[in-house]
Each structure stands twice: as structure tokens, then as C-alpha cells.
């Protein structure tokens, strides 16, 4: 022991535990409109402050302000509102089916709808998405069939994944939506590899990948950023910081001493920290990064700063580890309400049309649900168990044929 020195171990604590007040006052929140918008080919060394501020367009009065205002026309904004509402309606309905035992599992993205929808709009339809399990809003925004999504959730005969995957682990090649993996972060270096291949072929399509705050701790986060930086891959690496992993607060992932966008700096990659509940800010930042990548100016990391309003999944109950007061104390509001109020402020929307739209979308989801359920729900075999032995390899090898026969098929 060296005289006069005594080390101590630091264990981060969250802002609140059940029963306590929620306190987000420590968080870096800045006013809308204050962050300047750089050129898409700005050198990364000129962008080192971006991870430590917050790109916001919608102010507290729901007005669009500042250089990052994408100036989208009202029609597009209404589309965005619709896709966000549709996602929320879809989530609410599928949660119910899980409670009813029609599926074993479900994951909502409540509060994160702007992230997915605005990013889907800002990217080209043929750009390749490497999602996590919380990007259902992107499939909806790209117009994928909700019936098909439901059939995967029910593992019924219309499940194109042949009942092999957990509910919501979608895979939709024709929508540029990569097969979701149960292993966190593995899609991150894969997205970089895909983007490198696209660059190698002189293509114009870029890749984008999503992980959560907790997942940034995985090895493949570093592997992806290193390769993206070295080969200047045309890729957008998104981190949806919804403040929680499962029960652990983002400080446990390394959000206490810095921000997740800041991880990018050290690789010479721009890191943008964006108000994830601000549809316009998310759209604008994503469009900037996409143009940067598409013009051979390299990768961007985007931290989407938001809050997970719901449970991690239907297997989780947040009341066991966080204060219920948090959701309301959350300083950045709700993405749907904020875009709605913005449209109303523009005179492009009103409460009646909103209520009517909600009703219409609920009806649509219900109609799709009826159709999906008509093909069966949890327990309906999706196909013959014989298919269990297929697709391990392209062709069935002898040992699997023997096993299939042994299994009686």
C-alpha cells in the first residue's frame, strides 16, 4: 500500500429507481436550431463538437427552426405522421395478441417511431438496412405488408421464415431489410462489408445499420467503426439511445462519461447526436449522412437520442428497475405528438383529421390482423417439420437426410 492513496471502485447509478423521482437534468439538451449544419464533405476534424451537442429542429412551440430544417412539404410530413401512427397502432395490437396467447413474444418501439420512419424516408428505397429488432417502423414506412409481418409473428403457414425465428425477427430482402439476428451487434460489421462491396462494384446504394445504446459495448461495434473508417465505407451506423438496455441504464454501457456519438471521433468518423423524437431532425441528419456516404465522403455515426417508453419486450417489466415517473419527465416529449403539433401549427392538420386517421389506421391494422389470423396463430404449424432440416446448407447433405428420415419425414 502506497501511503496516502486508497483506490475505490466506481459503479454507475441510474437517474431513478422504482418509487423515486425521475431526474434528467444532467443530460445534455440544447435548444432547437442552435446547431449549425456543415457541408456534406466537411472534414471530420471540423465536426468533433457534434457528438456533444444535440441536433434539434422542432422547438418547444413545435416550430421548425435552424439550418437543419429539411423543409419537407406538408404532404410528406403527413405521410410520416401516418406511418408513425400506423407503427404505434401495429405495436399496440400485436402486444394484445401476445397477451391473448396468439404469439409467444413481442417487442414494441413506442417512443422510437420517428427514428425509424424519418430514417426510412431519408434513405433511398434500395439502400440496404441492417436493423436491430426495434426497426419495425422502417418496414412499415417502406410499405411492407403488415399481414406478412403478423404471419411471421404468428409463425403460421404464411411465415416466410418457416417458423424458424422468434416473432419479430423479420427478414425481407425485397425491401432491403436484412435478416434480424438474435446476437447483438453482429449486423454492424456486416453492414460495413455490404457497403464496401457496393463501393467496390461502383454501385450507388449505401448501407445503414442499427443497434441500441447497450449494444455499443459489444466487440463488433468497434470492429464496424474500424473497418468503416479504414475503407471509408458508404455506411451510416446508427445508435438508438433509448436510455436502457434491458434493465440497465445507458451509463452501464458507457454513456456516463461521454456520448455514444462521440465514439466516432476517435476513428475520424463524424458523430451526430440527434433528438430522436424530432422527426425533422432525424430526417435531416440522416439525409446529410446519406449524401455524405453516397458522394464518397465516408461513414457517419448517428446517435438517436430517445426514450424507451415501453418494456424491453413482453418478457420484461420495467417497474422492477425504473421509476414510472421517467416517461413523463423525459425532456424530449413524444415523437408523434411533436410532429402532430407541428403540422397543426402549420395549419396543415387538426384534431379531427388526427382522430379520423387514428381510427382509420386502427381499422386497417385490425383488418390485416383478421387476415393474418385466418392463416393461424401460435401453435399452427407453419409447414411440415421436415422443413426443419432445410436451409442449414443449400443442399441437404447425407447426414441431415438420415436425421430427417429418423425424425420420420
Amino acid at each position, binding site marked *: 500500500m502506497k501511503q496516502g492513496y486508497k483506490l475505490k471502485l466506481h459503479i454507475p447509478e441510474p437517474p431513478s429507481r422504482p418509487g423515486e423521482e425521475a431526474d434528467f437534468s444532467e443530460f445534455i439538451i440544447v435548444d432547437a436550431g442552435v446547431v449549425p449544419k456543415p457541408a456534406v464533405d466537411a472534414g471530420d476534424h471540423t465536426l468533433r463538437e457534434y457528438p456533444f451537442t444535440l441536433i434539434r429542429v422542432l422547438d418547444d412551440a413545435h416550430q421548425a427552426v435552424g439550418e437543419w430544417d429539411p423543409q419537407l412539404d406538408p404532404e410528406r410530413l403527413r405521410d410520416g405522421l401516418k406511418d408513425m401512427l400506423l407503427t404505434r397502432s401495429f405495436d399496440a395490437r400485436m402486444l394484445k395478441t401476445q397477451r391473448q396467447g396468439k404469439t409467444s413474444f413481442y417487442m414494441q418501439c413506442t417512443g422510437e417511431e420517428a427514428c425509424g420512419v424519418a430514417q426510412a424516408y431519408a434513405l433511398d428505397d434500395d439502400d440496404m438496412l441492417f436493423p436491430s429488432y426495434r426497426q419495425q417502423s422502417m418496414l412499415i414506412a417502406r410499405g411492407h405488408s403488415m399481414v406478412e409481418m403478423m404471419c411471421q409473428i404468428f409463425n403460421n403457414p404464411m411465415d416466410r421464415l418457416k417458423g424458424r425465428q422468434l416473432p419479430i425477427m423479420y427478414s425481407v430482402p425485397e425491401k432491403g431489410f436484412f435478416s434480424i439476428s438474435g446476437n447483438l451487434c453482429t449486423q454492424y460489421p456486416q453492414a460495413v462489408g455490404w457497403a464496401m462491396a457496393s463501393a467496390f462494384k461502383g454501385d450507388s446504394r449505401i448501407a445503414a445499420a442499427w443497434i441500441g445504446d*447497450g449494444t455499443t459495448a459489444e466487440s463488433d461495434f468497434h470492429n464496424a467503426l474500424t473497418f468503416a473508417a479504414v475503407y471509408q465505407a458508404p455506411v451510416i451506423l446508427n445508435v438508438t439511445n433509448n436510455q436502457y438496455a434491458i434493465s440497465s441504464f445507458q451509463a452501464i454501457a458507457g454513456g456516463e462519461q461521454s456520448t455514444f456519438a462521440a465514439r466516432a471521433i476517435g476513428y475520424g468518423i463524424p458523430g451526430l447526436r440527434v433528438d430522436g423524437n424530432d422527426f425533422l431532425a432525424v430526417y435531416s441528419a440522416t439525409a446529410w449522412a446519406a449524401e455524405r456516404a453516397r458522394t464518397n465522403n465516408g461513414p457517419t455515426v448517428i446517435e438517436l437520442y430517445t426514450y424507451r417508453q415501453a418494456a424491453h419486450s413482453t418478457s420484461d417489466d420495467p417497474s422492477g428497475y425504473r421509476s414510472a415517473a421517467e416517461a413523463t419527465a423525459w425532456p424530449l416529449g413524444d415523437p408523434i405528438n411533436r410532429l402532430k403539433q407541428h403540422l397543426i401549427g402549420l395549419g396543415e392538420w387538426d384534431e379531427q383529421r388526427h382522430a379520423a386517421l387514428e381510427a382509420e389506421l386502427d381499422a386497417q391494422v385490425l383488418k390485416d390482423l383478421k387476415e393474418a389470423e385466418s392463416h393461424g396463430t401460435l401453435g399452427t404449424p407453419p409447414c411440415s417439420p421436415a422443413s426443419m432440416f432445410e436451409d442449414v446448407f443449400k443442399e441437404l447433405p447425407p447426414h441431415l437426410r438420415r436425421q430427417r428420415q429418423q425424425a420420420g419425414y
Partner: protein
Amino acid sequence: MAQMNMIQAINSAMDLMMDRDPDVITFGEDVGYFGGVFRATAGLQKKYGSQRCFDTPISESGIIGMAVGMGVYGLRPVAEIQFADYIYPAFDQLVSEAARLRYRSGGEFHAPITVRSPVGGGIYGGQTHSQSPEGVFSHVCGLKTVIPSNPYDAKGLLISAIEDDDPVLFFEPKRIYNGPFEGYHDRPLTPWSKHPLGEVPEDYYAIPLGKAKTIREGSDVTVLAYGTMVHVAQAAVAETDIDAEIIDLRTIIPLDIDAIVESVKKTGRCVVIHEATRTSGFGAELIAEIQEYCFYHLEAPIERVTGWDTPYPHAFEWEYFPGPKRLKEALHKVMEAA
């Protein structure tokens, strides 16, 4: 004596060791305040403080690397990997470091770590919450691997694992956390509270690693099983008129080969069962050893009942799970063999 399910027994073992040894600490994803997604560490942070039971970043390699460093310092870390399906990012730290450190340092450094992780299917978890990776680790010299089949063993074996000066993988069959599972998903589950092996002493006791346990004596055939499959074996045997001897291996490395050989020499027939995929699963090693030591006593080929060589398919869990039906077929097959 108290009635405990497997989670409670595992929790009790850690509680006890943390109480006895201030250098025992535990950590993992969601392990701290929340007490683990399966609640195995529930109450430990409250009781021993956040420095001895805490959450980690979602980085399995970081978790094991940190544990090895702590072990080198002199602590006895107990790391939880949330699901064994997620142990692969830590493969290098386990295989190249934890398993090799004592050897490469001429015995001058070692890391007495315990790695707990739930294994196996039958909980509708799909292909990334159902795997049984014990086979790959059994090929890695320097690692011990334990797989308990009941609360009583779980506590006694976990205590031995924590006290052991070598790295120990402690795989917990999650399907039997709440009660013995015989393989019939459509039948009600008897909780451990109604099972004699759910009777667990509150205080300290250790079950030595490397010792198998004969669950049922018999003369016709030897069934080798571990974890959930021990209960499947008991159910299957009970449904036949075959007088099978059932051995619960409990530890696969080191393996209690003597107990196995003695039994097979007696019965002359053998079936091995595990949930992991067939090819190069631990069943293959068991068969290779048995045919070497018991060749002249064997009256029939040794049968393997295992998971298929495919990922664990979510919707076809019960077609995949090696249940009593398949084991009975195998038993009849080895009995009928001339």
C-alpha cells in the same frame, strides 16, 4: 432443509459464498439491481452492495476478460452470461486465456473464475435462447464444465465451482429452473417444491466436481445423461419395462469415466442422450471412450439421442427436443440388438 427451485439453490450458493469469502463477487448483464433476467442474483446487490454484485456492459468478451484479470488479482469472480447462446463473443477469452493461463505461465498465474450461463431449449426461446454449447468447450483443455440436473446438485456443485482454482463453466438447464421436465410440454409441470431433490440445506455443502451420480440402478442398459435429459431419461425408462441404469454425469470435464465403464460393463448396452446437436457433440466423446474401455462387453451399438444438426427451430421446438419418445425408441433398439 428448505424447498428451493434451481434458481433459489443457485442464488443460495452465491449468497453463501459471498458471505463466507469477501473476494467472491458476481456480475453480468442485468445481474445487479434487477437480479438477472432469470433472477439468479436477486437480492445479492441489496445484501452485499453494488461493488460485489453489479451490472456490466453488454460485452461478453469484456465480462470474461475482466473476470480473468480480477482472478489474477486474487478475487473469485462469478460471471453470468445471460444465455449460453451469447457466450461466443467471449470464446477467445475463455479458450485462449482462462483455459491457458496456468499452463503458459508455468503455474505461476491462474484465474479461478466461474462462468454461469443458462443452456438448453424447451422454453420457446428460438435458436438464440436454446443452445447447448458444452460440446465445444469439452474439446478445450483447461476448462471444467458442470451441468446440474436439480436444485440440490446445483447448489453443491456451484459451491465447488466457486471454490475451484481452475476456470469452471457452470451451465444451467433453464428448462428445469422451476421443476423437473420430463419432455412432455403438454403436461403440467411438477414444481421442485414437490420433488425430493428440491430439498436443499440452507447452509454450506459441496459436491465434488468430476463425480457422476447413479439416478437409477438397472441391469439391462446404461443411459448416460446430464441436465434436463436426466429427467427425460427417468420418464422414458419408467414407461418401458426395461431395467435401465441411469447415470447423471453432472460434470462432463473432468468426466467420471470409472462410473460409466463400470455400469456399461455390467449392462453391456448403452444409450447417450443430450440436447446439443449430434455431430461432434459430447455424446460422441462418451461413445469413443466407452467402446474403447467396454468393447468386449458391448452387446449392441451405442445409440445417440440428441438434438438434430440444425439450429433450434422456434415453431418446431418439440420436434427438435430429444424427448422420451425418441429415447424409448433408442432403448428398444439397443435391447433388441442381438
